[in-house]
């Protein structure tokens, strides 16, 4: 391993030495802990298991509320598929926004399958053109998979993987067919 010799210097122009090109500066920033605690600072800071417990218990407290909200959001997703397929841009934007929320939050609150299907849906929407929206079948299958994931949380992971792969194949096939037709 290469040894690196770093000489700390005072800030400002004086800090730039002859070897360093004048347009490149490396600045050592004092740690926030050092700044805030001053003489009380003892390095290094370590992860405190009690604090971690506290954080995890906070997540558990929020889980029940989230589960209720998630169920309502999924019902909303189901309602949004049809208007989205008919060209309603507001419905499309709402559908993406809801699935984006699920992608980010469901896994944290103990619904990893919902999170994975929502992630797949988001990635699909991010590359959706108007024809994809109007076709609507891939959207519908995703939303059904999300509904199923919350209704049957104990689903065999192998089945989940197979469903995700099937959705992936469906996306490729739908887009492939259109390319050939076009």
């Amino acid at each position, binding site marked *: 391993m290469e040894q*690196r010799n770093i*000489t700390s*210097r005072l*800030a400002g122009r004086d800090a730039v*030495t002859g070897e360093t090109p004048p347009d490149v500066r490396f*600045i050592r920033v004092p740690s926030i802990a050092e700044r805030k605690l001053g003489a009380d600072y003892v390095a290094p*800071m370590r992860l405190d298991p009690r604090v971690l417990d506290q954080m995890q218990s906070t997540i558990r407290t929020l889980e029940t509320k989230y589960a209720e909200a998630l169920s309502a959001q999924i019902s909303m997703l189901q309602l949004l598929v049809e208007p989205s397929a008919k060209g309603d841009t507001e419905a499309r934007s709402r559908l993406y926004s809801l699935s984006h929320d699920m992608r980010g939050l469901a896994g944290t609150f103990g619904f990893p399958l919902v999170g994975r299907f929502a*992630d797949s849906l988001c990635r699909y929407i991010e590359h959706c053109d108007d024809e994809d929206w109007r076709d609507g079948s891939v959207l519908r299958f995703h939303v059904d998979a999300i509904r199923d994931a919350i209704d049957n949380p104990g689903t065999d992971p192998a089945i989940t993987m197979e469903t995700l792969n099937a959705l992936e194949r469906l996306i490729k096939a739908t887009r492939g067919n259109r390319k050939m037709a076009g």
Partner: protein
Amino acid sequence: MTESVFGKISVLVVDDSAYMRHLLMTLLQAVGVGEVHLAINGEEAWELLNTKEPDIVITDAAMVPGDGFMFAKRLRSLRGRALGMIPIIMVSGHTDLESVERARDIGITEFLSKPISARGLYERLIQVIDRPRTFVETPTYRGPDRRRRDTPFKGEDRRGSVALL
């Protein structure tokens, strides 16, 4: 010691999802963070910086108007102000290599992928609070040193001189 540091810091959370804002705020409060400020997008966060000067920014990547990348870029462009060197933790569901590299090249300090975990957030907080990386300023990049590993590399090592802020 840990609690006393957290009690003295303020964190700005920028996320367009109300749930995510609430989750992050509650988790930060559980850690003992003294002040948590919330903004719903990059534009609102920018406005908020007129009156607040947080110690850490936690921002989502995808937001409208003013996404996390744009917001981080604006922050990093603040030369001559401590705010320009503020640690930025980017929280994102886009975990592909391209997005992570984009975040790195814009000067993001830490990347936290969604779904977030308590441990993931806590570890990144400790990282930015206690182990700051050397800050680099070049004509094309401004942000923490992107080389995290001290491994040999080809080319000139320009890290020989480090200014102390």
